[in-house]
């Protein structure tokens, strides 16, 4: 295992410490319990947004703390959801008196730990609503699974709900917006290589030189199926088609197209995927009116990408365009 780390157990603390120093104008960092919140503290009267989950997906979530997006982010150990005693203080730090929206990716661990934290927060009279993000269409039959996973679509939920909170919407309204984004965003990913969790020291799975995993999540786990390596155009079609079908996209609709890198894939390849995904959408008569391309929800150094499509309406578009000032997303 080759990594620019010191002690594998110290990776998360050292990362958020460095992150806090580098972005002191945007965030403030708490160590023990570990969480990241806005530099200025909670905004009075504004709904607070909190997300969190295992580390290893950087810039998610800490990179999205700041004006127009999250109020606090709670990093767990690598690929392990944070504990209630980290999450509850983050709720408190984010609460400006108008309640808190917790944005939780749909994994058993995240859901259970956030659930407990919500109980703790409510005991302290902080109102917390929860939106579970489950945009991954790779998980087809949610009857026989823990339900669809939350993957790259999480960024879109955080950005747009963040803008909703920033313009003064109340907790119910922000929650409804977040839910609307989640309902209208679908994703599917591919891995070309595995990743190596620092404490494990070994690749998360073995993948021969000529095979790839389709339908992966974001935790270095194998995907739904293994197929021979194919061209970027063909792979992109395998990702885009189930996403577009699941959304039942119709000609004439506007969408946001988000090509997300898993961490180890060069930007050039993401643009090649974007190019083909866009062509395929246009062939369906769908108009790409907003775009995002880059490493936003990663799996450490994994090579691969995911394609997310969000169906836009004029309100979601305006909220997407609203100013945002975080370490990883800014305009």
């Amino acid at each position, binding site marked *: 295992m080759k990594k620019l780390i010191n002690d594998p*157990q110290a990776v998360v603390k050292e990362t958020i410490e460095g992150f806090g120093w580098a972005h002191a104008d945007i965030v403030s960092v708490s160590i023990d319990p570990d969480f990241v919140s806005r530099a200025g503290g909670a905004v009075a009267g504004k709904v607070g947004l909190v997300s969190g989950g*295992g580390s290893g997906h950087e810039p998610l979530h800490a990179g999205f703390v700041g004006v127009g997006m999250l109020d606090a982010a709670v990093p*767990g*150990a*690598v*690929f*392990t*959801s*944070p*504990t*209630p*005693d980290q999450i509850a203080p983050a709720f408190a730090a984010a609460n400006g008196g108008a309640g808190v929206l917790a944005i939780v990716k749909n*994994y*058993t*661990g995240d859901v*259970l*730990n956030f*659930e*407990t934290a919500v109980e703790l927060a409510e005991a302290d009279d902080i109102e917390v609503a929860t939106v579970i993000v489950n945009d991954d269409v*790779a*998980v087809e039959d949610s009857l*026989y*699974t*823990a339900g669809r*996973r939350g993957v790259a679509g999480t960024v879109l939920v955080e950005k747009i709900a963040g803008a909703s909170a920033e313009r003064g919407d109340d907790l119910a309204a922000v929650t409804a917006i977040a839910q609307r984004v989640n309902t209208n965003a679908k994703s599917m990913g591919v891995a070309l290589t595995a990743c190596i*969790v620092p*404490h*494990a020291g*070994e690749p*998360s*799975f073995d993948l021969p030189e000529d095979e790839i995993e389709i339908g992966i*999540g974001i*935790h*270095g*786990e*194998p995907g*739904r*199926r293994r197929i021979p390596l194919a061209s970027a155009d063909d792979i992109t079609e395998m990702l885009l088609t189930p996403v577009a079908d699941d959304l039942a996209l119709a000609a004439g609709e506007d969408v946001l197209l988000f090509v997300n890198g898993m961490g180890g894939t060069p930007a050039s390849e993401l643009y090649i995927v974007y190019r083909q995904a866009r062509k395929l959408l246009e062939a369906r008569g769908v108009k790409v009116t907003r775009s995002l391309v880059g490493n936003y929800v990663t799996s450490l150094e994994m090579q691969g990408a995911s394609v997310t499509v969000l169906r836009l309406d004029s309100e979601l578009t305006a909220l997407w365009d609203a100013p945002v000032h975080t370490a990883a997303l800014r305009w």
Partner: protein
Amino acid sequence: MTVDVAWAIGWTRATAERVIARRAELNGLDRQIGDGDHGENLARGFTAVVARLDALEEEPAAIGDVLKLIATTLMSTVGGAAGPLYGTAYLRAAKVTGSPTLDSRAVVAMLEAGLEGIVARGKATTGEKTMVDAWAPAVEAAVAATDAGAEPAAVLAAAATAAEAGVAATIPLVATKGRASYLGERSAGHQDPGATSTAIVLRAAADAAVDVVTQSRA
């Protein structure tokens, strides 16, 4: 015969030693059908448990006090699915073990409470390839042993043996709960890490009871 607070402490320390020793094995199982952190999670949690045990100024009065310490520590240090699941199991078990000693019926009640906690939180039933597949047969075997008049040490041994059989039985299963369920059919053929750690926990309980019995006889 009963098990006592010394047993509970011995059980806890043995569990910690064993999950730490088998950390890599548990990570490896979790890497195959999950995200490779189950051993890491439990090792981190039980390391913290032992540190808190060591820091206690006086011996806990009741077995439930030990179990509650474990519960809160796991909840605040483990994270993942295992943190809340084990945390709730120990918390529920603590609620029914507020005495200094437990007889066989009380041991069964403790195990039942643990299982109920896991099911309450995780909503899994047997056959879903989770820790329930070790806990449920363990509880059943404990009941049967108690009904047959076994002492606590034998009850725990029966539970551990049944849990171990349950672990083996998870191999062919297709997971429908937890992270492994995302693999669909591909989850079959692998042993569930959470069931495996459950068997470790229960075997530690049985062995600690033997140790205590051996010591009290010596």
